[in-house]
């Protein structure tokens, strides 16, 4: 079981909603024995299974909180669950089709099944039209966040290998 798991969420065919999926496709680590990258699509509650066994989980998803498109949010779970619950894209819809990220993580927190460290990077989105490419603002954020996550995870893996 690899201790660090990076999970991208979103519909790759729905404009800015693709951010999480597109971001994890860009990541490339030398530490493949400690880092696992997962494209989770719209996995809903299965996300809890996907996170199981990891020490640290980094999730990337779309956020819609009426801030400037491309704004990057860093949320720590469970501390920032309420924010996530309100603003995660696709939240507020506990249905057969989609338990949103907020609901899934809230359920995991309630049941005590979340990994010790869960961080969500949310990118503020503008347009989720099916069949469209991500907007230019989101593209810029993707560039920035990719470098940030790459560095953050490199630092984590160094700590892991030194400990």
């Amino acid at each position, binding site marked *: 079981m690899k201790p660090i798991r990076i999970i991208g969420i979103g*519909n790759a065919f*729905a404009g800015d909603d693709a951010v999480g999926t597109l971001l994890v496709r860009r990541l490339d680590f030398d530490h493949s024995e400690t880092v696992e990258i997962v494209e989770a*699509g*719209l*996995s*809903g*509650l*299965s996300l*809890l*299974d996907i996170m199981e066994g990891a020490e640290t989980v980094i999730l990337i998803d779309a956020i819609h909180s009426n801030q400037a498109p491309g704004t990057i949010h860093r949320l720590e779970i469970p501390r920032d669950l309420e924010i996530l619950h309100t603003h995660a894209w*696709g939240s*507020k*819809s*506990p*249905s*057969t*089709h*989609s*338990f949103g990220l907020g*609901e899934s993580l*809230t*359920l995991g927190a*309630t*049941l*005590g*099944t979340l990994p010790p460290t869960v961080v969500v990077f949310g990118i503020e989105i503008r347009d989720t039209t099916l069949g469209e490419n991500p907007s230019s603002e989101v593209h810029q954020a993707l560039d920035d966040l990719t470098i940030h996550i790459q560095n953050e995870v490199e630092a984590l893996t160094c700590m892991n290998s030194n400990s």
Partner: protein
Amino acid sequence: MPGNIPNTRTIKVDLVARVEGEGALHVTVQDNTVKDVELRIFEPPRFFEAFLQGRHINEVPDIVARICGICPVAYQMSAVHALESIAGVNIKGPLRDLRRLLYCAEWIESHTLHIYMLHAPDFLGFESGLEMAKVHADIVKRGLRLKKIGNHLLTLLGGRSVHPVSVKVGGFSKVPTKAELSNLKDELSWAREAAIETVKWVAGFEFNDPEQDYTFIALRSQHEYPMNEGHVVSNKGLDISPSEFEHHFPEAQVPYSHALQCTLNGSSYLTGPLARLHLNAVHLPTIAKQVLQDIGHKLPWKRGSKSIIARSIEVLFAIEEAIRIINSHDSPPTPAIPVPLQAGIGMAVTEAPRGILYHRYQVSEDGTVQEAKIIPPTSQNQKRIEDDLRSFLPQVLHLSNKEAAIGCEKIIRSYDPCISCATHFLKLDVERLQDHKG
């Protein structure tokens, strides 16, 4: 409200827009009598029928898997059986078993999610599965572990857990090894016990929605609980082959809904777990028959809410069937058999978690789809849901519109419709009108 009820009132459950579809409920009451009940559904398969035109038959399983995130296997199964029937190919032996195993995975996953996270909260007085988890954490954990087993199986057979990619016309692109399947045995043994506990748990709920004279429609095959094949039968004498489906089940447009409504002899009918159980209980495995007897709910069941028991019995069946298949399975010599291209029309009906799913394809000799028709279970149940609501509403007319709408949502949820997203998070508007006719 009581004492101040206008002659005409409208109970509306407003539209909730979703990627997968949209649903709403509109009820008109006049002089304390229910006048109109309109369940408004917008379903995506209509668009897919057009997408499929001009595509090669080998592309169809991957395209139809995208119709639904929770029952992609059903769409793939109805598609491949319909397409294979054009060439007269009938998949047998280990490949047939693996398709059935894949369907078991989907039933386990879909049913368990509905039982634990969407439906049980209605019986136990919680607003949502999240709220229920705060009080019944261990029960919810059991449900999620059960669901995970379905997910494991689906991933193993389908190549991934969402929108599986391994199903193809003629079989699979890749099949799991016997060893990979055997690895699941321990977890499936746990699941069998958990499924029995689930049946006993839900059988203890209270069921007090009005009794109905349901026309049940399901597949029936001679030797097994139906999934991939069989005749379409009813509890009132119907017995037809899938190719005759459209002759007996015409679709009609209703002005308020994008989903066509299917009827049988002009009336509504019910498809899904309740119907399957009533028409196929004889084919349940011994353990499921025993549990059914132990819980003391004697068939027939006339309340839609009891679908939660039917669903839980089917989870037990699917787990038992998965164990049986894995224990007796031999790897197929090849993951797929050739299916020659041939012009023609093929139809198939399979049992999606929510009920029968009909596909028809007209294909040219180079394998291009000329026409596709898909009739999903939710549009078939649409009229039956309206009839249930019509008979239920008099029980709640003395309540506020908000409380009445909550009751209506529960009736709708018993069907596990693909619009349960909309029906679980309803924004309610109350409109009261004076009756100008005096």
